[in-house]
């Protein structure tokens, strides 16, 4: 099994190299085949590795080479595979493969089709590096690498300037988080003298709970996670990142990259468990993000924007789970979310494809009859994210809510409200897009068509996974067995809440969910399915529709003052720094110009200079001058 491990990230790297070098010299079909094959092979190896991990609790470390060494500081490029990694391997390569296949259909008419696959393969490589590294530095390489790919893919259609700005925004917001991550890594190194996960873990016995260094380090690491996983206040880049092609939104900005923050916190859970303050902080940030994003999503008219804010909200949910110590629930939600959110994005892509690029919900309507397969799979996605009983989303959310309930009642009520809001805006989306009558142009209506098999096949697979994915973690009372939780137990033990009324609470929640969903269904049907919705908001609704004016506030608070100050720094840079550097150059030139006149060409002068020098030397030496 060990010999397969390095091959997992190697395949997409080879794919990237081949595609990148071949460029447009190979056909689109060929490029798609190469790109998909690389990921497919990785997926097969990931399955083998996962299978081997099922039977053991031992982690496997595979050292590739000594990356660098300075004094006692040594970093190896090594891969660590344990239960957590093997789950992420499956998510990344599995969902990645489906989205690769989907892209071959979705991007088929794009002129830069081959470049797209090049970037996608590179992304998968970095993502695998991120989840496979056995130390923080290798993880950081992957972390930065996926950030780069995200940047490249958001700005993929670089001829539209707004998209480039969105790419820049994503990159810059992430840099802010990455600075925190880097500082956190530095701090961990000064504390432990190593960056290796296992070595750090073995040092922890000496550390007290609440050690200030640990608290600061974990907070800094979490700032990195806030950037990458788009938590408030570093969340503003993710909605704009929808500028990228839809498969990118599905793969990078829903299923994999944005969950890197969750992976990092779970990977470091042994450190986080020593910092209760940080955990509480994470829970609060997660809760705020979940709530704020859900309220924004209520008033979005762009199909991808709704899904983007929904992703923010779900990421908040995951952090809430981590914050209350339910690590395995967080990871489980990462997995189910990867299924249903990828499904929803790909479904939205299929809708956009059918609508000839139109993303505005107000122009859609009545699509359920035109593109039935997309509709059915999309419906399953909506049900899953809304928490329809026994779908994957139900199981994972239920578990998070339970853990939160035992942690803090207030958190629980807010989180439950978020679940209801989620169901509402997803139903709203469904109603606007698929019910009522078609509101687009005549030409669009003429072009409406179901997507090709390469696009619908991944939808079907993901729909099945969204429906049945929860069964691996079904609570006892419904006759299930928490397989997933037990599998992750060796990485992050989950707190057990045993309570006499547990079963009653579960049944109550099931009942409330069902009732809620019915109410939501009728409400949304009433408001949004009759084509009278105009999509114009006033008052507080307008504030929500505009993302609480976060962008405008940041613009006033940070961008404008910085621009103002930078005028003066610019002048300082040009006059003082450039002037200084140029001045030194000019001084040397001037010196060269003047000194060369010493070389007069007269032998007499030369001899005189020699004699003078010898005399000076003698004086210096005899009288010990200087």
């Amino acid at each position, binding site marked *: 099994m060990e010999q397969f491990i390095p091959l997992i990230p190697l395949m997409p790297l080879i794919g990237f190299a081949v595609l990148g070098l071949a460029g447009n010299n190979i056909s689109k079909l060929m490029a798609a085949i190469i790109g998909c094959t690389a990921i497919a092979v990785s997926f097969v190896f990931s399955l083998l590795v996962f299978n081997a991990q099922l039977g053991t609790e031992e982690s496997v470390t595979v050292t590739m080479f000594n990356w660098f060494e300075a004094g006692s500081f040594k970093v190896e490029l090594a891969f660590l595979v344990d239960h957590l990694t093997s789950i992420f391997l499956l998510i990344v390569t599995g969902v990645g493969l489906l989205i690769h296949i989907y892209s071959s259909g979705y991007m088929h008419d794009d002129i830069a089709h081959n470049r797209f696959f090049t970037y996608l393969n590179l992304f998968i490589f970095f993502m695998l590096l991120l989840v496979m590294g056995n130390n923080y530095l290798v993880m950081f390489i992957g972390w930065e690498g996926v950030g780069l790919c995200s940047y490249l893919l958001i700005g993929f259609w670089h001829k539209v300037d707004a998209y480039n700005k969105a790419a820049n925004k994503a990159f810059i917001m992430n840099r802010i988080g990455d600075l925190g991550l880097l500082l956190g890594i530095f701090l961990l190194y000064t504390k432990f003298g190593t960056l290796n996960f296992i070595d750090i873990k073995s040092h922890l016995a000496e550390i007290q709970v609440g050690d200030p260094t640990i608290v600061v380090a974990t907070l800094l690491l979490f700032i990195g996670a806030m950037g990458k996983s788009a938590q408030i206040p570093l969340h503003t880049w993710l909605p704009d990142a929808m500028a990228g092609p839809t498969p990118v939104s599905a793969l990078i900005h829903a299923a994999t990259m944005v969950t890197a923050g969750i992976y990092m916190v779970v990977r470091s859970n042994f450190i986080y468990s020593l910092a209760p303050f940080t955990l509480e902080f994470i829970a609060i940030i997660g809760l705020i993000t979940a709530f704020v994003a859900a309220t924004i999503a209520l008033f979005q008219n762009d199909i991808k924007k709704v899904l983007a804010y929904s992703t923010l909200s779900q990421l908040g949910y995951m952090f809430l789970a981590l914050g209350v110590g339910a690590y395995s629930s967080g990871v489980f939600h990462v997995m189910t979310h990867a299924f249903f959110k990828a499904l929803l994005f790909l479904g939205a892509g299929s809708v956009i494809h059918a609508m000839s690029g139109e993303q505005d919900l107000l122009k859609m309507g009545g699509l359920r009859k035109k593109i039935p397969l997309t509709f059915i799979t999309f419906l399953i996605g909506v049900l899953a994210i809304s928490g329809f009983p026994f779908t994957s989303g139900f199981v994972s959310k239920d578990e998070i809510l339970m853990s939160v309930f035992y942690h803090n009642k207030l958190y629980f009520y807010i989180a439950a409200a978020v679940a209801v809001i989620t169901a509402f805006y997803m139903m709203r989306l469904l109603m606007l897009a698929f019910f009522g009558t078609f509101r687009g142009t005549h030409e669009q209506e003429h072009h409406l068509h179901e997507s090709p098999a390469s696009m619908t096949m991944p939808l079907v697979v993901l729909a099945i996974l969204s429906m049945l994915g929860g069964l691996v973690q079904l609570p006892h009372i419904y006759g299930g067995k928490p397989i997933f939780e037990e599998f992750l137990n060796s990485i992050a033990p989950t707190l057990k809440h045993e309570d006499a009324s547990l079963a009653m609470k579960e049944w109550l929640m099931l009942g409330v969910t069902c009732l809620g969903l019915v109410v939501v269904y009728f409400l949304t049907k009433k408001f949004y399915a009759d084509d009278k919705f105009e999509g114009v908001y006033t008052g507080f609704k307008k504030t929500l529709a505009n993302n609480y004016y976060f962008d405008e506030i940041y613009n006033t608070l940070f961008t404008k003052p910085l621009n103002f100050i930078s005028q003066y720094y610019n002048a300082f840079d040009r006059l003082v720094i450039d002037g200084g550097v140029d001045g030194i*150059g000019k001084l*040397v*030139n001037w*010196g*060269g*110009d003047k*000194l*060369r006149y*010493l*070389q007069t*060409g007269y*032998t007499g*002068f*030369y*001899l005189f*200079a*020699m004699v003078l*020098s*010898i005399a*000076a*030397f*003698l004086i*210096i*030496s*005899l009288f010990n*001058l*200087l």
Partner: protein
Amino acid sequence: MNEIIIVASLGILTLLAEIFNFKKLILPLVVAGLAANIVVGIMEFDLASYYNDADTLRMIESDLYAKCFMMLLSIIALVWVLVNYNFFSDETNQTDHLALILFAIVGGFCMVAYTNFVMLFLGIEILSIPMYVLAGSNKRSLRSNEATLKYFLMGSFATGILLFGITLIYGSIGSFYVYDVRMKTASVDFTITPMFTIGVVMLIAAMAFKVSSAPFHFWAPDVYSGSPTSVTSFMATFVKTAAIAAFMRLFITAFPTAIESYKNVFFILIIASLFIGNIIAVFQTNAKRLLAYSSISHVGFMLLALLCLSEATSLKSLFFYTTAYSFTTLAAFLVLKIVSENASGDDDISVFNGLAQRNPLLAGTMTIALLSMAGIPPLSGFFAKYNMLFMALNHGYLWLVIIAILASLVGVYYYFKIIIAMFTRNSTDSTAIPLSLLQKSLLVLLMLIIITIGWNGWVFNLI
């Protein structure tokens, strides 16, 4: 000792060739002889049977230091003869030139192996007098005549100072034998007298002249640019190596403890060489003058090894520096020679314009050589500078290291002037420059040497 005998015999054989009329054969014979000399040297290199100076009337000793530098000088000499094969094409002067070069080589050998001040003086003179003549070997050129006259006048002046210094040291110690001097100066009851100090400073000044360190460098730019390019490259490589090795040997054998007392003098020599060499080079438009100033700045680096004599790596650093410097300079002069001969003897920097298009191999070799001189990794020049600076840092001269780095930064500027000319400027003459097979293989060989010798440190650890 074998080296001296072999090369001196070759020199005499060359003179006989004139008389017995086998001139056509003589150049191949000399090449074979020099190659044989290297083979003999390599075969004997590991033998413990070094010549003891008791066998040579306490004049010459084949210790490891002498052995290493003799090998280096032999290889430089062989490569130089191959590089400048056509320097000997003039029928009338062929044997004279060749004999002078061979005797100069013998002088170089004496300079790196002496154990007696008399032998040091003889070595320097045996090397210098052929150089005075060769500097003027382009008899019809006014500048060549100027070069030879200036070199001779100033060289004899320096020789006078050298003799003066040796005499004063003899006066205060009572011996010409370096190990006697060392024993006397190391003993407890030795006090430094003014006579001894004046003697040492005179010696330093004379040797500084021979290695063309500022402020005794004035002869170098005029002589380098006036002499034929072949002779200049011999001066810049062989003579410079022999002279710095003799300078170093003076202090490791005769007064190893004295260097601390005269370190102020060395500070001045080093800083002046680094700055005058690099700064004046900035404004030069003549490639040979530019390389002359650049060689002055390299001397500043080499002298660091003398200053930090007590460091374990000082000998290694100097040996590696001279090796890297010599081969780099040989390569640069080979390119300059070919290019300037192609431009009917013009050696202005503008002859390099557009060389990359006219002959990529020449431009590539020149680029590698210049980058190595500037100290860009992973070329040997980088490792040479690195070793020197690391040694100085260990010795506690942080400020000197900073000055050296600043000065060599200036160097990057003027080395790149030539590189930019080769790659971005357009030439007035765009015909390709033809190369003979010998020239091509030498260019490739030198390029490989420059690139690789620094990598695993075997040259560094030879000595």
